């Protein structure tokens, strides 16, 4: 066991981990931040996406020790201090961009990374960016609409309604 230290959602944290401990395991088991979900074991589903030093990362694909000293942001740190949803979270609720909620943390974190890179993405750009996030419930329709809305764009224009 080795002690690893990092900043998670603005807080200094530490914990003992094995070399093989994944960042997702560290977040969930050591820190109790169970909002980060694990939906696969091949780095495909994206339910575990967090931000490490500002970049979207699949936390199941990084060892906890690799994140030593890093600044990590998870879904638990996205709402305001008063609990109010941020723009992306609010858009997901407004446009029904989630059903069972399991992929949602990763979707929200990926969407945040997308809008940081590309503040006004097209529908095609959103769909291509979400290549690494699988949702089984929504058919993506309302996720795309939510992200479009969160970016301040006209939503009905993207949906065939």
């Amino acid at each position, binding site marked *: 066991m080795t002690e690893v230290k990092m900043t998670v959602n603005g807080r200094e944290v530490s914990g003992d981990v094995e070399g093989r401990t994944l960042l997702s395991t560290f977040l969930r088991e050591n820190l109790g931040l169970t909002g980060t*979900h694990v939906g*696969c074991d*091949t780095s495909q589903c994206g339910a575990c996406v967090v931000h490490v030093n500002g970049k979207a990362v699949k936390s199941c694909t990084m060892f906890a020790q690799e994140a030593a000293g890093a600044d990590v942001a998870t879904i638990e740190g*996205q709402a305001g201090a008063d609990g109010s*949803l941020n723009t992306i979270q609010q858009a997901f609720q407004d446009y029904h961009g989630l059903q069972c909620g399991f*992929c949602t943390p990763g979707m929200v974190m990926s969407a945040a990374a997308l809008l940081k890179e590309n503040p006004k993405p097209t529908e095609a750009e959103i769909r291509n960016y*979400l290549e690494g996030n699988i949702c089984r419930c*929504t*058919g993506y*329709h309302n996720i795309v609409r939510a992200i479009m809305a969160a970016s301040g764009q006209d939503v009905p224009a993207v949906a065939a309604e």
Partner: protein
Amino acid sequence: MPKDHGIGASPKRREDIRFLTGAGNYTDDINIHGQAYVHFLRSDVAHGTINSIDASAAEAMEGVLKVFTAKDFEAVGGLPCGWQVTDRFGEAMQEPKHPILAEGKVRHVGDPIAAVVAETPEIARDAAEAIVVDIDELPAVVDMKAALAAGAPKVHDDLTSNLCYDWGFVEENKDAVDEAIKNAAHVTTLELTNNRLVANPMEPRVAIGDYSRGTDEHTLYTTSQNPHVIRLLMGAFVLGIPEHKLRVVAPDVGGGFGTKIFHYAEEAFVTFAAKVVNRPVKWTASRSEAFISDAHGRDHVTKIELALDADNNFVALRTDTHANMGAYLSTFAPSVPTWLHGTLMAGNYTTPLIYVNVKAVFTNTVPVDAYRGAGRPEATFQLERVVDKAARELGVDPAELRRQNFIKPEQFPYDTPVAVSYDTGNYHATLDTGLKMVDYANFEARAAESKARGKLRGIGLAHYIEACGIAPSNLVGQLGARAGLYESATVRVNATGSISVLTGSHSHGQGHETTFPQVIAEMIGIDESQVDIVHGDTSKTPMGMGTYGSRSIAVGGSAMFKAAEKVINKAKKIAAHLMEASEADIELADGQFSVAGTDKSVAWGDVCLAAYVPHNYPLEDLEPGLEETAFYDPSNFTYPSGAYFCEVEVDPDTGAIDILSFNAADDFGNVINPMIVEGQVHGGVAQGIGQAMLEHAAYDENGQLLSGSFMDYAMPRAADVPSFGVDHSCQTPCTHNPLGVKGCGEAGAIGSPPALVNAVIDALHRGGYPVEHIDMPLSPSRVWNAIQSVK
């Protein structure tokens, strides 16, 4: 102007707040003090005899509590099957034992052989690798027809063959159907496969067993769509634990799609093992493990023949299906290819004579059971494909051939020749709506434009029927169900008028916490925020059958409606007393009880308070309190229907398909929350597109699952699907439940695969490639090869 509250409004989902902030409580988020972890050692061969299991090295490892094998389960039952099918000859299906851990033989890749319980998941996994299992591999049967051939290896040595049952429906019609087909003016024949799928809800299965010696109580936390069903099956048939000592909790569940209905070995294992090791025991499936242990879906091979008279009227239909059961009978597996499939073969049509033959077959593959739609997608796919082929052969428009043979609006209620009776529907209306949505009239111009770019454009239509709102208990009992299919609800009014609804339905994405309060709020005229839903815990809710078969609002919502009616009737008596009026004159609107024709009124909250503080109360006539329970057993299935249209462009050089549009015009009867209903359709259509274009649980001849991870099994991703057009304005309310609702959960997955395949076949024909059929998934290579085959 859309409503802003109550039935028909689309309030935002209240459950979203916790899901969007990481505060959901999924089973894997639960950790119990002192818990140990289990890792299952699973078979890596499809079929073999277990000679020996040497767990000594594993047991000696530090941190290992115990290694379990079949020997530990000698006093325990196998996993029960919840449905017995009777075959064509009146005999019961063959029903092999399904042990918790493999007994003497392994029968599919993934069959659990041993289980290590240890202090950490890592130790459990490492120790499982240290177990030495000596297995003599046997030849595997994977292909269904090969499994039925004389001399084929038997999956279960104690059965007479690999045939589970040979089912005929309606058996008395067989000769008449044969005769009608022989004499028909035209017969269209199609052979097709309904590809095997893996449901893959994004949350893998998890189970935690906990046992209290102090109270002799067991608790199972599990990723289930129906905790009461699990309690009954596991308690009564596997472990012998009475209900009052067994609590099953299904907290937030990350999607189900059918695969979380069933009672699985891992649930029984953790419940059993927790008592043996005297520690809570937790199991969390990896996705790789889910692929070889979750029940799969579909996997039918069918020959269908549609007979028409000289005027293109459907006169008879005959199908011959082989349905894969896998290695064991999963909980509801036998019902899927029979009663959930054969009864739907009339579709939307007036075909008078129908005969369905289904041979269910054991193979050395993962068990197959219900997956979104369950039997109904298989029925719709073959029927809507053969109708399309018939239209092409006869040179008539596929929409018009359907319309000509539709059951007409004035023919409802309509008794089909396959046992079910449709209460309502208007197929002409959904078809017309769909035709407008896709601008069918101008399709030729669009096709010409594609052609100019070297692309082949096609349009495909499917018109589905579904039987859901499952189901009348007395009917399914006659058909072999070993369970009732009612639903329960308790409406518990609190002293100040807020309400908790305890429902046997379970939400794993469907949004019950939002929609169910809409109904109560509408009935009483109070704000939805005054109503909460409690579900997913057998210690809290009355015995209910859970959520599947698009039954939550149709059956569970009806139970809630009935319970709320009882509450309102009692509250009216209290209000009458308070206002010194006759009960018959009491009216309830907008949360106020009033006396008809007067200005007297009393608020909902005051009546509720009087019920719990009964100082001024008719105690001689009425008990205090305001809480009522109802069990609702439907008198019929509900029958949603709809027209699904897919427009594609095929690249003839590569076989790649581009979905240009996908539109769905559904009749769900009354709609409680349009936003949620549309979301259900979107998700269902995406799963149907996944089946039609991408997904395939492929086995090699040795029984190895080739597509056993998300690297190999192509889940639909955001760029694989278009934005969808959805419409639910055609509403013929259900006539036999109090809300007039039909259910919407499975429709998308039922209607979409044939629409997409029909579109691709249409595109190929228009491009001069007369391909009659391509089996799903329509990968570019399959489409390209089909094009080459007719060049």
